């Protein structure tokens, strides 16, 4: 009995194992295929609609001979030359635009892509609501400031009232005791009050003058309207595109670089509408038509989305520069991003939550210096710092626990001004 009872269970186990054996590799394959598809195919093809090239859904049915399909992908022009009918047909159908050759794709890779195409297109539950990056709790500085202000004011009023009461009481006792009292001086002629007011005015005015003078040329929260409504929320937040995909210069150069239009078109050749994401609003509350903004991009790129061709009439986008430093400041992105391993958000704020970008930090020298005083350099990880023998010894002997930027001269004038 035991055996008969255990058979189905064993069988089911066996089935389970075989199921996993069968499904896991294909699942892996499909996942690889997705990556490969995005890397190699997506700039010209979509799964379920025609772009530059045909929609790839059902491609396996349209190409009955697998070998020919491999040959086509590896080198399409060679296949067209052989006169293979399906090849010639596709070539003519799509404006005789030659498909790029992918000789590096092995049959296994192509299978993976095809597997992905077969599974893709079936709608999946939306997973797009997760936002990228750790959310930082918003500080409500302004609220507490107001609170303190009200509190101070109330206390001041109470103090004033108490003073008044005090003086009245004294007056009354004096009257009772018949002591001769001088005529009371109204507070606006009271020298102590006037002096106090003058001092307060001087300090307050001085503070405001100093602050506003210091703030000249600074533009925190500067958020100009850009020629295209480009949402970092959609790109960096929802779709979690790595910052460096577009701003690759940040790793190598002093400039982070605004991406050139061809970088936009890497994806937007395929993504020609904004349909699935949340509704977009400008700061003033106006709704933004994402698809129209993508159309604007096509205008700049000189891309005809209907004919799926470049017209050659492109022109560069004149973005409005937000982060400006004075000419006498040298700032290098690579130093911070690559050598210092500083997150973009440290200076640029929560960029993944910004619709149109604004300047999150005031970019003042004090702000730079403060960070340089606190930030630690990659002292043990980066071999450059191996020459700082004394510091290494101090760390070893526990006289020091870390090395800040300031310690290696990061607050000296000619680190940024030369």
């Amino acid at each position, binding site marked *: 009995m035991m055996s008969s009872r255990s058979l189905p269970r064993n069988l089911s186990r066996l089935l389970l194992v075989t199921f996993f054996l069968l499904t896991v590799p294909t699942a892996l394959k499909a996942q690889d295929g997705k990556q490969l598809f995005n890397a190699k195919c997506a700039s010209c093809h979509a799964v379920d609609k025609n772009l530059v090239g045909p929609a790839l859904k059902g491609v396996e049915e349209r190409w009955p001979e697998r070998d020919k399909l491999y040959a086509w992908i590896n080198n399409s022009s060679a296949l067209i030359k052989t006169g293979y009918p399906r090849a010639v047909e596709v070539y003519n159908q799509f404006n005789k635009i030659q498909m790029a050759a992918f000789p590096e794709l092995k049959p296994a890779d192509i299978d993976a892509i095809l597997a992905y195409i077969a599974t893709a297109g079936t709608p999946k539950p939306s997973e797009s609501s997760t936002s990228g990056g750790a959310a930082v709790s918003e500080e409500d500085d302004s609220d507490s400031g107001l609170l303190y202000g009200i509190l101070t004011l109330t206390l001041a009023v109470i103090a004033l009232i108490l003073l008044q009461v005090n003086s009245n009481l004294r007056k009354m006792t004096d009257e009772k005791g018949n002591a001769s009292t001088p005529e009371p001086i109204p507070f606006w002629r009271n020298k102590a009050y006037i002096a106090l007011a003058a001092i307060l005015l001087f300090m307050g005015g001085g503070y405001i003058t100093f602050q506003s*003078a210091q703030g*000249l*040329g600074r*533009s925190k929260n500067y958020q*100009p309207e850009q020629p295209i409504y480009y949402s970092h929320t959609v790109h960096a937040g929802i779709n979690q595109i790595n910052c460096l995909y577009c701003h*690759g*210069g940040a790793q*190598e*150069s*002093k*400039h982070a*670089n*605004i*991406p*050139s*239009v*061809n*970088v936009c078109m890497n994806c937007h050749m395929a993504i020609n509408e904004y349909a699935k994401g949340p509704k977009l609003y400008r700061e003033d509350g106006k709704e933004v038509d994402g698809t129209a903004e993508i159309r604007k991009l096509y205008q*700049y*790129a*000189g891309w005809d989305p209907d004919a799926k061709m470049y017209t050659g009439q*492109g*022109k*560069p*986008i*004149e*973005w*409005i*520069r937000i982060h*400006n430093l*004075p*000419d*006498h400041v*040298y700032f*290098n992105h*690579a*130093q911070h991003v*690559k*050598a210092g391993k500083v997150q973009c958000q440290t200076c640029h704020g929560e960029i993944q939550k910004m619709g149109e970008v604004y300047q999150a930090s005031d970019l003042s020298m004090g702000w730079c210096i403060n960070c340089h005083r606190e930030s630690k350099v990659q002292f043990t*990880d*980066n*071999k*450059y710092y*191996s*020459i*700082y*023998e*004394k*510091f290494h010894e101090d760390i070893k002997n526990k006289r020091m626990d870390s090395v800040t930027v300031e310690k*290696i*001269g990061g607050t*000296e*004038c*000619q*680190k940024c*001004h*030369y």
Partner: protein
Amino acid sequence: MQQKKYWQNLGELKDSEAYQASLNDEFAEELPYEAGTGMAAATAPRRDFLKYLGFSTAAAMAAASCEMPVKKSIPYLNKPENFIPGVPDYYASTWVQDGLAVPVVVKVRDGRPIKIEGNELSSLTGGGTSAPVQASVLDLYDMARLRFPLADAKEVTSFEAFDKMVAGAMAGLGSAKKVLLTATIHSQTTLAVISKFLAKHPGSEHITYDVLSASGILLANEACYGKRAIPAYRFDQARVIVSLGADFLGTWLNPVEFSRQYAAGRQLVPSKPAMSKHIQFEGMLSLTGANADDRYVHRPSETGAVALSLFNALSGAQESNPPADARLRKGIAVAAAALKAAPGAALVVCGSNDPDVQVLVNAINEVLGANGTTIDWSAPLNVRKGMDAEMARLIQEMKEGNVGALLVHGVNPAYDCFDAKGFTDGLQKVPLTLSFNDRVDETTKHCKYVIPDHHYLESWGDAEARTGYISFQQPTIAPLFKTRAFQTSLLQWSGENVEYGAFVQSYWKEKLGSQEAWDKALQDGLIEPVSPAAGKASFSSSEVVPAANRIESAKKGGKTELVLYAKVSIGSGKSANNPWLQEMPDPITKATWDNYAIISYAKAKELGISVDDNYEVEVQKPMIRIKASGRELTLPVLAIPGMHPDVIAVAVGYGRSEQTGKAAAGVGQNAYPLVSFNGRTFDYQVTDVACEKTGDQYPIAYTQTHNQYEGRKDVVREYALSEFKSHPKLLLEQREKLAEDYAKNSGDYRAEGTLYPNYPYPGPKWGMSIDLNSCTGCGACTVACTAENNVAVVGKSEVLRNHEMHWLRIDRYFATYRDDSGKDDLDSLNVVFMPMMCQHCDNAPCENVCPVNATNHSSEGFNQMTYNRCIGTRYCANNCPFKVRRFNWADYTGADSFPDNQSDAKLDPAVFQMNDDLTRMVLNPDVTVRSRGVIEKCSFCVQRLQEGKLKAKKENRPLETGHEGKWDVRTACQQACPTHAIVFGNVNDPKSPVSKVRDEDQTTRVFYALEQLHVLPNVSYLAKVRNTDRPVGLSVAHPEGVGGNHAETAH
């Protein structure tokens, strides 16, 4: 006892009152105080001042509260691959001018070439450059460049239309002779293009015209060796070098290559104290003469006699007619003895353009066994190929109307030809005149058609300055203007519709065998033969006796003789519109922006010009009129020591026309009309001139009396090789004596002598060492520094007021002896060059006088200057003992926030040329452009330090500062130096070359400038050593030197 004196100007030598007075003032001119007895009498009293202050503050506030300007960021539409904005690209190319070629690497930042470096793969130059090479990037952005082709001085809108016009004009000529006139061309592809053109147009001819000709050498070598070529010289292989007027470190043939060889032969290591001996015979004081161990002056007309006398002394022949001057005779004997003692390692070179003299020099070299050792025939030099007689013949043919078409490329005979008038007259009779020159110069002005060639940084091409050593050009920027490669034009007109760029590529691809080989060659910028062995040529002595006879019977010179020379900076005059070169002080005279007649003190006296105490403090120089062979030239005079008493020297390359450009126009006088043609070659000397004082005066902007050391002596150190061998620790002992005042026990000033704590410098600490033995004073570093650091050009009028901005100057010292009677022996003159820039003192006097802390010390050991903090008190400049700080007296750069600051200033046109939007493209974007009212100075190229450190950090490795030849950081001056005199690096790294030099290899030669002040500079020098028997050493230093000065307290 003899006293040795080092002096930069006569006032210093004589210690004159005017000199003393000039030392007292930090700034030479009167400061603009209002006249009057006190504040109240001033025209701007206190109240007005307060009013202005209040108003300007309010105005500034109002201006600042306006809206911030909107800035745009415009990325590419389609970014080229492998290009990152903000990261420079480097392309190998080749600088070519007047037949010279230097392989270079061009730094291109965001599409703009901004700096030229030498190509270190070149075994000839080793990465060295010269001042003209460094400055050439500025010529690319020259406002005076032609922007489109011209026909009859009108714009031609398309090349097709131009080609049609030229084709029509050429067809109309029939079989008339067409002449292509160029400078020396050694580019294989260009020569191929020219031969195609010549083949297409039968009867046409290619004539090579060299402004600074070497026809004499070519003819002599043809007579002696049967080759019309110039051999390669090996100065590094020579233990004794005798030069008869050849300025081989300055302008003779291929100076960058020669400088490197020369310095290699004079490299001195204490373990093996040996160096080459260099004896110079010349009429004027040249850069090469200034570097010589022994130097003898003679009249230019005596060059042949000196060569003959030397030949006789070496071959043991009887001397029939030796030179009259006893000192010169002695010099010849000394030279002959030295040469004889170094068989197979001796070399005699001669700068004369007289074939007879060159034949004798060949004979001398034959006697010395130089042929095949120090003279190498295996790979001849191709830098000069022109035959002067051909140019004379061309002018004749043109005058006779026998030339149908004249196509001019890269030469300017209407300006620099010996018979410029004959040439322009002849040009009137040529039906088709066409110029490829880049501007409307003196020749182009007379040409009917003009189709400007690209600048070399826009061009494809190749060069073969030495046979087998091929270097390439590739475009580093798309042509800025509507210009076309001259070779493309020739190809078009020979019926081949092909671009020269494509032609070059297919030519070399075929020649090198594969695309890969060509790609590599282009990337390297050059191909070189594998370790060539020195070659010999067979010598025929048949011409020697006739040549000697002709020299013997040559006409003797008159009372006064004149020699024409080319300056290291301006050269033949092609780059006359380059403000960097114009403002670079001449190594010898320290003069900028002019040419002048250099004369001896004796001559000055004879002309009635008093070289008195005020002579050098006063910038107004008397003019003289020089009359020679029917031509006249009026020039200001500069009297310097080291000249033959009866020789006048005048630089060529000046006096350009208005259209040459803002910087060149009106600067100096054209001396080329004094060149003559003697039937065989051009003669650059006039053996009989008359001169007289005109009574007029003319200001010369020279920096001779600027930036003095406040009367402090012994800034530079020099000794003789014999002294160095016998007493190697002499300098060290003198330095130790200096420490006695402050650090009796340890000898370490930091430990005992200072109140300040001893800062440990935990990371890198930067230091520089300059070998005065290798430094030739050529000035490449000065221009490299100007280019790298956006140093402003101030123009002549401002240099006259001591306002030059160079961060790096080269102090030129004359060293003479004073005997007991107080007479200075100017015959035994030594010249020492000392590059002087901010010494980055660890105990810096400038730092603690700044009221706003705008200049302070970095944790990496250098002195940092913060422009945005500087308020312009100039206390630092006042307190700097080296006088290396520069103040922006006016808005030289146009960088002020108030736009009209330049309009009132009486600045020279050259300054405005530098501030044009086109010219400003040359600025280094990593360096702030300084505005008015701030001090600036050498920063040790801090932008390069930062870049180098970042590179190491990005690659996660320690910094490389020269160990095993790996460099993350080199300063601009170090990289430009053709002799590698400058070493820079991390002194905390014991393996870096700078540490090695200071602590291991050269401990006995190290010294610091003004060490007695204990300012602890981070720049050290290696003392100059001269290979001579004359007393030059430290042991004859004058008593007020080391012994007397060290009691002075540090500031």
